[in-house]
């Protein structure tokens, strides 16, 4: 790569770094293709140093809105990036649905109000405990799975497990790992 090309690439990378994801999304949502392209280039900081576009002021659909999103740019998979908020939302929906189901059962069955409310609270607490355990277990299981696979794929950085495996006696080196671990 010659110097001019390298300089051009680094300048492009510098410009890319100034990209505003919110504005880029708003640009994509604009129906007029010409305007959309123009706004997209502005959002990516390719046309001027000021990446603020007129979209938010011209009814283009972009709104700063939700404070969670204004904290940081999360990337393209917002649900994964805002995992904490997603979990809270999921739990809240579960709680409401379980609760309203139990109260509906009690109402249709003409249960005494006290009994319906008691059954509802017990069900919600049980469901919350189950959901918490399930979420934590899934988290641990995936993390272990991921890092095991990552260790298997890795070759440059040798993990303690790799070192231990390579230190196996010569007769065991051709055996499947499961037989020697």
């Amino acid at each position, binding site marked *: 790569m010659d110097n001019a090309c390298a300089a051009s690439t680094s300048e492009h990378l510098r410009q890319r770094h100034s990209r505003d994801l919110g504005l880029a999304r708003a640009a994509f949502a604009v129906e007029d293709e010409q305007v959309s392209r123009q706004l997209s280039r502005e959002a990516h900081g390719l046309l001027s140093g000021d990446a603020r576009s007129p979209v938010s002021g011209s009814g283009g659909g972009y709104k700063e809105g939700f404070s969670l999103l204004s904290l940081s740019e999360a990337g393209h998979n917002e649900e994964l990036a805002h995992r904490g908020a997603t979990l809270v939302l999921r*739990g809240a929906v579960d709680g409401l649905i379980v609760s309203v189901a139990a109260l509906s059962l009690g109402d249709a069955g003409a249960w005494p109000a006290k009994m319906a409310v008691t059954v509802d609270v017990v069900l919600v607490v049980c469901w919350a405990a189950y959901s918490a355990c399930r979420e934590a277990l899934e988290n641990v299981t995936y993390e272990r799975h991921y890092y095991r696979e*990552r260790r298997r794929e890795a070759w440059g950085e*040798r993990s303690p497990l790799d070192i231990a495996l390579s230190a196996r006696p010569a007769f065991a080196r051709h055996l499947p790992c499961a037989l020697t671990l």
Partner: protein
Amino acid sequence: MLPCSELDNFPEGEISEMIELYTRKGLPEPAARQVVTAMATAPDFFVDVMMLEELKMAPPPSVSALAAGARVCASTVVCGIVPPLGAMLAHRASQVADSAPLEPSTYALLLALTAVALGYLGVLRAAITHQAKTRLAMQYLGLALPTVVLARVAGGLLDQF
């Protein structure tokens, strides 16, 4: 069961595998080789790319298992406890005995408030996923509908016994 050779250093094999993968996706072989060889100079980054491209495995979420469980548990309890507590308060406010069923108006109010809360949660989710607020609010309301209908059918059947 993994063959031991996969755990040993074998960069050439991994590079070939990635080149083959990119070639299958439509990248010309020389370009794929150039890209993969360049990425392989940063092993940590290359392993992350292999995890995504070969195994379709994203890095684990930054929220720990304990925190994830705690968030789900807390939000379920908080949002799940509000309707029955509200129902009990409304029931007592109408000065009806605890042994009597819920007043129809109390139950209707409860359903309406739950619907509003679910709609609001749908709007919050729309803000995270950049989708139409109305659509996601309706989706959450749609989740509640079969639950309420089935619960009412079951309650009606139980009442007949």
